[in-house]
């Protein structure tokens, strides 16, 4: 089960702006889902490998060969705002790009 605080943290991580009633409703929904999960947790899966992919395909590659890019206009058209060839967004102060 999760707390109301957990719900707010999840909303922050997903960049969702929840009102208090929305948060409370989601809290209830999430706990009902998690309750079901808890029941599933009781099943013995010690002899079952975790499944991350459903189709069983492996080793799907492409060769290192160039294909034409999209025209820049196509990208800029989809962006809320742009400046010259750049996509423009509200300033990001934290310089915490991961790479």
């Amino acid at each position, binding site marked *: 089960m999760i707390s109301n605080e957990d719900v707010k*943290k999840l909303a922050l*991580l997903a*960049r969702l702006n929840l009102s208090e009633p929305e948060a409370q409703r989601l809290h209830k929904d999430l706990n009902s889902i998690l309750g079901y999960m808890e029941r599933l947790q009781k099943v013995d899966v010690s002899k079952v490998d975790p499944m*991350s*992919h*459903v*189709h069983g*395909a*492996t*080793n*799907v*590659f*492409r*060769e*290192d*060969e*160039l*294909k034409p*890019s*999209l025209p*820049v206009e196509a*990208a*800029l058209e*989809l962006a809320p*705002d742009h*400046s*010259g*060839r*750049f*996509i*423009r*967004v*509200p*300033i*990001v102060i*934290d*310089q*915490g*790009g*991961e*790479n």
Partner: protein
Amino acid sequence: MAQAPSRNGKSLNGVVMEFEAVIGLETHVQLCTKTKIFCSSSTEFGAEPNQHIDPVTLGLPGSLPVLNRQVLENAIMLGLAMNCEIRRYNRFARKHYFYPDLPKGYQISQYEEPICERGHLNVPMDGAIRTIGITRIHMEEDAGKNIHDSRTHSSLIDLNRAGVALLEIVTQPDLRSPAEASAYLRTLRQIVRFLGVSDGNMEEGSLRCDANISLRPVGQVKFGTRTEIKNLNSFKFVERALEYEIARQMSLLKSGKSIVQETMLFDSATGATRSLRSKEESADYRYFPDPDLPPLVIEEAYIRSIQERMPTLPEQRSKELVDGYGLTAYDAQVLTVERMNIDFFEEVFKVCQNAKLACSWLTSELFGALNTAGLDLKRSPVSARNLGELVKLIDSEAISGKMAKTVFEEMFATGKAPGEIVAARGLKQLTNDDDIAKVVESVFANNAKQLADYVGGNDRLHAFFVGQVMKSTQGTANPKKVNDIILSLIKKRRG
């Protein structure tokens, strides 16, 4: 400015305490594949903003990533070069965080299942070898670039770099000083360049690193609290940032304060590190296996085929130069800094068969001239073949070392072959004994009085005759032979 020895005395309750630095590096190496890791857009550096984009780069709904085969091959090759175990079953994972240069809202990376694990790298350090443990190497995609514009209070996004293939190489906390950290990075750069997996160009961001650093009292096993310095993009900055951070942490510890675990940025203008965000607030990445990318199953035969195609590594080639060619360890090190150097050297050697002369003409004359001209070996006006021919002419005493310098200058200026220059200038060294003897006899005939004195016992005149012979041959006679022939002809006359 920070003057930071990695060890320093500290007096606490009358006990002198010494600290040592514990450093681990996470290095991102940008691969030099033609296309991005999961799509077919170009990785060209310096293109117009947003020139190399496509639906996968933009994270458009419905687009699917497909792994570039070359990226996997390069990752395995680097892993083998760094003595790693190659994981047989690989999955990619999504690492979630919100940042405008990451359009999907997650970075495709590897998490619990990196392609390479448990390796080590031998790093030459002050004439000895330090073995640095490698925790892991994994494949991931790069993010785009942001330009912050405070004037309009906006950030400008260029996604050309988004999706370019990276390998992240993580060391064990085995490094003990800023100099060791820099030596490790240089060795890593040398290896990726030898393998041809990356250009290792730090100015263009192809090699950048994050450093974890903590201090602990010497003799203590447990690590101290560490800080992480992000995004160091030159060898010099790595050293300076670590020196500053060591000094900062030491002064905190000396005054009885504790270190806060946090992420720092290094400001190259001030030479100082500053706090970026504390680790406690650090994001929750919510890793999970990426369902868009099927798992990789790596066969033994595939690993073997990569191993067979791998070029010989600098460590091994350096050993061959010392053991096989009789070069000094120093020469071997200079020649193996770049694969280009050693390949060039071997071409020169093939022609001339004299390793020591080939090495000295390559490393002092050619490198010197290239350096002055601001050129690299790739653009050398003197080809390996021509340098080999020149060394051969010197080795066979067809020309003297002094003449060779003149010939070399002309080779460098014109790109001509040495034989051509020697013939055109009539520079050929006089080495035939009979020819030299003829010149000596004619010099004797023209200096009858001095000759009589010399034969009579005035040995000081020997130098005079050598000088006269060299003068009359315009310096083309082999001086050692001139010397010997004069001595033997005088001896005959003295009977």
